[in-house]
């Protein structure tokens, strides 16, 4: 048996079981004619059975790209993975032959996307598209596959599944379409489900229903859930652990309860202060000033320093901890909490 890599993360899932998915020091870049986009810059995380890990970050922070790298569905070129390992059940997906990787997509790891309307093929019925999972991976006949599709549509609580199995994606509401996507993704009982902003395109009430469905399915199957979102409310409600991404890096990681009550990174602090619904440490709503960085020109030192209210530059900085000159590594600050900030202790108040 191959040796499992030592986990890069010190944060463990609740039940302490060993991780199913382990991402190690992953980099993804896009080489275009004009420039080089450093979309993902050395992220590491693990997901265990039954765990929900939220990946939180502003748009453009590399959340989707890292998920697509794990799925092996990035267009290469323009994308390139110069470094990293993605361990799934003892195998590094990045060194696996393409055909072996393909066989893992679906039964091993599967993914749902933000916009279910554009993510479903408009010219095939939903039953056909769900059934494809069984035909491609299980060798089922078209008829049997459709029967299984009906069962799955029932399972994701689409009303009148048997009547609707031959309907086309455009004939469903947004919430029902996302359920079709979910049915497709869980068809083969994956160990890991990556949900990339699964409710962003939906109404608030429908959002809650879809999240409830995902949580119920996770409880039934014990799958690990990677929930990509920029919605702190969703994270707060459903996730066990959270990894906060900024400029293609993880800048803070810990359990949701701890991170949301006591953030250890000024960026996380800023996110919490900018939304009303989550009980932040103190006081007024205050959006983070400035724009997210352009990933082809990431600022030197701490990538967050141009926007950071706590930054210390030049003479103010401690030796080797100049926010504009020295890049802060992701480090263990207190037990169970990692942050990539020179002055994390001050943020935490420890």
């Amino acid at each position: 048996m191959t040796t499992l890599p030592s986990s890069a993360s010190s944060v463990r899932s609740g039940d302490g079981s060993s991780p199913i998915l382990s991402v190690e020091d992953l980099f993804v870049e896009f080489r275009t004619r004009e420039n080089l986009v450093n979309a993902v810059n050395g992220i590491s995380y693990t997901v265990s059975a039954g765990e929900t890990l939220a990946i939180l970050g502003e748009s453009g922070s590399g959340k989707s790209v890292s998920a697509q790298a794990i799925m092996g569905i990035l267009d290469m070129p323009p994308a390139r993975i110069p470094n990293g390992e993605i361990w799934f059940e003892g195998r590094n997906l990045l060194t696996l032959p393409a055909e072996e990787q393909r066989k893992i997509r679906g039964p091993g790891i599967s993914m749902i996307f933000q916009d279910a309307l554009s993510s479903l093929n408009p010219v095939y019925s939903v039953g056909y598209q769900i059934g494809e999972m069984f035909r491609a991976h299980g060798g089922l006949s078209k008829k049997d596959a459709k029967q299984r599709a009906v069962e799955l549509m029932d399972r994701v609580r689409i009303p009148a599944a048997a009547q609707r199995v031959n309907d086309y994606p455009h004939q469903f509401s947004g919430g029902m379409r996302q359920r079709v996507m979910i049915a497709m993704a869980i068809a083969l009982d994956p160990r890991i489900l990556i949900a990339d902003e699964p409710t962003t395109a939906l109404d608030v009430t429908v959002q809650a229903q879809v999240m409830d469905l995902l949580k119920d399915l996770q409880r039934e199957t014990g799958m690990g859930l990677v929930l990509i979102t920029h919605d702190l409310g969703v994270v707060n409600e459903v996730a066990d652990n959270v990894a906060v991404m900024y400029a293609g890096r993880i800048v803070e990681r810990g359990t949701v309860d701890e991170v949301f009550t006591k953030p250890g990174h000024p960026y996380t602090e800023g996110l919490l202060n900018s939304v009303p619904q989550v009980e932040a440490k103190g006081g007024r709503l205050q959006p983070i000033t400035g724009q997210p960085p352009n990933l082809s020109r990431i600022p030197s030192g701490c990538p967050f320093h141009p926007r950071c209210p706590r930054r210390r530059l030049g003479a103010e900085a401690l030796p080797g901890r100049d926010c504009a000159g020295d890049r802060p590594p992701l480090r263990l600050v207190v037990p169970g909490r990692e942050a990539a900030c020179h002055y994390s202790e001050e943020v935490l108040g420890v």
Partner: protein
Amino acid sequence: MRVSCVLTEEGSLGRYIARRLLLTVPVLLGASFLIFAMVYALPGDPIRALAGDRPLSAAVMAQLREDFNLDDPLWLQYVKYVGDLFQGDFGTDFRGRPVLDTILLRLPVTAKLAAVAIAFEILIGVIAGVLAGIRRNGFFDNVVLVSTTVIVSIPILVLAFISQYVFGLQLGLFPIAGTTEGLYSYLLPGLVLASGSLAYVARLTRTSIAENMRADYVRTARAKGLPNKTVIVRHTLRNSLIPVVTFIGADIGTLMGGAIVTETIFNLPGIGRSVFDSVRAQEGAVVVGIVTLMVLFFIFFNLVVDVLYAVLDPRIRYD
């Protein structure tokens, strides 16, 4: 032109077709009247032209003018013509041969020519477009880009003469004219007739494929772990070919116009050639009959395409 409106109700397609067929009547009447008027406006006297050098007696000429209603005003001539048409009578040419006989005799030639042209559009155009679209900016893509640009920029008349000269005369690969060598005689004229549309089909296919390869649902197909072949054929090609299929369908109706030039240059005895000859001989009944038929084909194939569109793309419904 194309009605796209989401409608779940069954049977709307049947009503749509019926309404389109009904609309065909005024279109055909209008088109045939225009053609009729143009032939009427042609300079010269067809009877005199028919007579050539032989002098005809005034009585015979008067009789002929009478038979063909040539002394009636335009509108009356037209009404009489349409009246006959509704009884299945396409009239006769000045030599007394029924126009319908001419059409029935010559239509198969044009049908074969059009079939060969469409086959070229599908075989060469679609395949070249698919290959170029899958490997965008590759060598083959550039070859397609350059060659289609060249083809599109040359008028069909010039293309016909050049290919006749090069492939027929110089290389001796194909017969230059006539239909004596069966289907083989149709290859060169078919290719020339198809050329413009073929280039367009290649471009359309390429663009459509390139666009679809970036579609979210293709990404989903890959995320589902479908084999690469399935991703390309089922989730990229199938969607990409919808506009191509509909273009080719509509093009069957359009090819008839090109057939006039192609059949004349390659001396194929089809209805296109008939139109050309009849215009020169001022055979009004033949010109109007055939051109009206061409318009009818055009309308018919456009209707077929609209129906086909709804079959291929479930989002399209007709109301």
